[in-house]
């Protein structure tokens, strides 16, 4: 299983991330200071590093530069409370592979890590199946129990995104950014997303005993066959 190093000085956040990532099957090590982070990361045995920008001791960018000059190839996900575009560019230029603004949803961190750690040989298949639901990503067809379901383009994009992340909860923020391509968080899209989800749910779940599209309260939405154990 993939080995992850978390460099984060806030104990609560670090612990929560560690527990969350372990429950997802990752092997996790936590460094609480920049200097500790430098020592551990240069050992080079981690597949991914979750790196906080603002750290006591050496800060995230310094660690990043050090790690890259040492030739360490670990994928780096930079966490920061700054989200000005200039900072984002600076972070990526320093060698980060991706960038996540605090506060973030844990589901999003998981999704990003999965993308970063995905082996290059892994190819995306054309069709996703969730129970008896089939989503053809190339031809944009949706079938459930062998019956075609007509979706609007936006509804299809939404379903496709959920299907790609099947089994994983996606937040409204991820949907706004990745499906609606909306970069500004202050834009009022939450209601819009909720209405589209309601439409989609009606089309794919109505009349079926097993519900596939679930709302995870306070987190987001998930497409999965197993009903929650509640």
């Amino acid at each position, binding site marked *: 299983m993939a080995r992850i190093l978390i460099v984060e000085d806030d104990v609560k956040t670090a612990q929560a991330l560690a527990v969350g990532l372990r429950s997802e099957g990752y092997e996790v090590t936590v460094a609480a200071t920049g200097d500790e982070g430098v020592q551990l990361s240069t050992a080079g045995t981690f597949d991914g590093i979750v790196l906080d920008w603002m750290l006591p001791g050496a800060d995230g960018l310094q660690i990043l530069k050090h790690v890259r000059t040492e030739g360490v190839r670990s994928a780096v996900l930079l966490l920061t409370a700054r*989200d000005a575009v200039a900072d984002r560019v600076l972070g990526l230029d320093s060698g980060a592979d991706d960038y996540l603004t605090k506060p973030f949803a844990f589901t999003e961190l998981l999704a990003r890590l999965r993308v970063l750690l995905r082996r290059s040989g892994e190819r995306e298949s054309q069709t996703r199946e969730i129970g008896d639901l089939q989503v053809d990503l190339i031809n944009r067809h949706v079938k459930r129990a062998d019956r075609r379901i007509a979706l609007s383009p936006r509804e299809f994009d939404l379903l496709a995104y959920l299907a790609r992340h099947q089994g994983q909860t996606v937040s*409204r923020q991820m949907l706004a950014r990745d499906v609606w391509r909306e970069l500004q968080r*202050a*834009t*009022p899209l*939450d209601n*819009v997303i909720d*209405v589209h989800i309601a439409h989609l749910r009606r089309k794919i779940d109505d009349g079926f005993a097993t519900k596939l599209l679930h709302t995870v309260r*306070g987190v987001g939405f998930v497409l999965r066959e197993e009903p929650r154990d509640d």
Partner: protein
Amino acid sequence: MISVWQRRSFKVRLTLWYAAVMAAAIAIFAAVAYEIVEHRLAAELDRQLRIDFDLVEAQLEKDSSGQMRWTVHGAHGDEGFARLAAWFEVWSEDGRLLLRHWPVPESAVRSPLAAPAGSALRFYEAELESGFHVRLMERPARVQETGVVMRLFRDETEMRRTLRELIEVFVISLPIAVLGAAIGGYLVARRSLKPVTTMAAHAQKITSESLSARLPNPNPQDEFGQLASVFNDTLRRLESSFAELKRFTGDASHELRTPLTALRTVGEVGLRGDPDVRALRETIGSMLEEAQRLDVLIDSLLTLARLESGEASLQRETVAVPELIHEVHDSLAVLAAEKHQRVELQAPAGLTVVSDRILLRQALLNIAHNAIRHSPPNGEISIHAANERGHIVIQIADQGGGIAPEHRERIFERFYRIDKARSRADGGYGLGLAIAKWSIERLGGRIELESAVGQGSRFRVVLP
């Protein structure tokens, strides 16, 4: 204190300048006056020398022995006067003294003058003894066929005394005049700078607590009045932005505390007793919702802060307006459809504007969202774009309840909500229109609002 020192120094500088200009003016005047007087007096002496010449020449004779002789004929009357006034020498053309008539003893003169240098008419001055100056005229003449050169004298003492007195008058009066000018200048400077002193004293008392105070401005027309007006205007703006900042701080802390309070209460209540897993899920989910509310709220505030500080950089590009409007509509259509509202779009094909696409889109989304939210079910919303006299104007009109005049001014303020309870349940923070307003202003445009209670509202986005 610096301000006092500078004020003093300014007065002193003004005074010094004044005195210096005055001194220069008087000096030039004195020099010119002296030149004129001196020239006039010298000319007067020359005139008298010519008269003397005529008198004397007419009365010169050669006696039988060839001696030159000066006879005063009775025809001219006062013999004594003519004798006394006339002071001359007659020289032969080859430089011999033929006749000398001096009213002062010759022995008193230490340096008898040399023979005339030439036979041309000339006027000049000479110092016969220390402090005794005379003016001389040499002129050729003929006495009974004999060519001679006559030299006539006039005492310059009187003229020189007059000139000396003139200089004395100048020397005494110049410092007095300059001193007077300096004192006058100082008084004038002090008097004309008094409004500044008063203003400074008043301004000093103004603090953030008393921004409602204004400078007294008895004469708004003059320069200081204009200064006071400008200052008062600045104060007025400062006062209103202070008031807005205060209100904002209060509102923001209230808005931030509301989700925080919910978080704590839900968390605490959720832990009471012995909750089962399902109840805990509910509790945590509810807490996460509040956390997200906080997140969105802080993001909105940051967006606003960046817009207001001008920190957000603009990326201007040519934006196709019809496409943009359709995009806005596509994003929000589903909300309108939920309420069975009709959205009417109208924009001439090919209408473009150079602007920051993201900011403009965000502003339009916020206004349109607001329109959908405040329109009744089955209502109609229109989004029209047009080129009005070179300005791109995008109008978003709804058939909502309209906005009463007392709210119209404040609707764009942060956290301002007409119906607070309803908006919050809706998920609104009262920031959408504020973000729209700042976005459009950042783009150099403005938002106009036309509204009447019961007849809906029309937001006009006017782009430069």
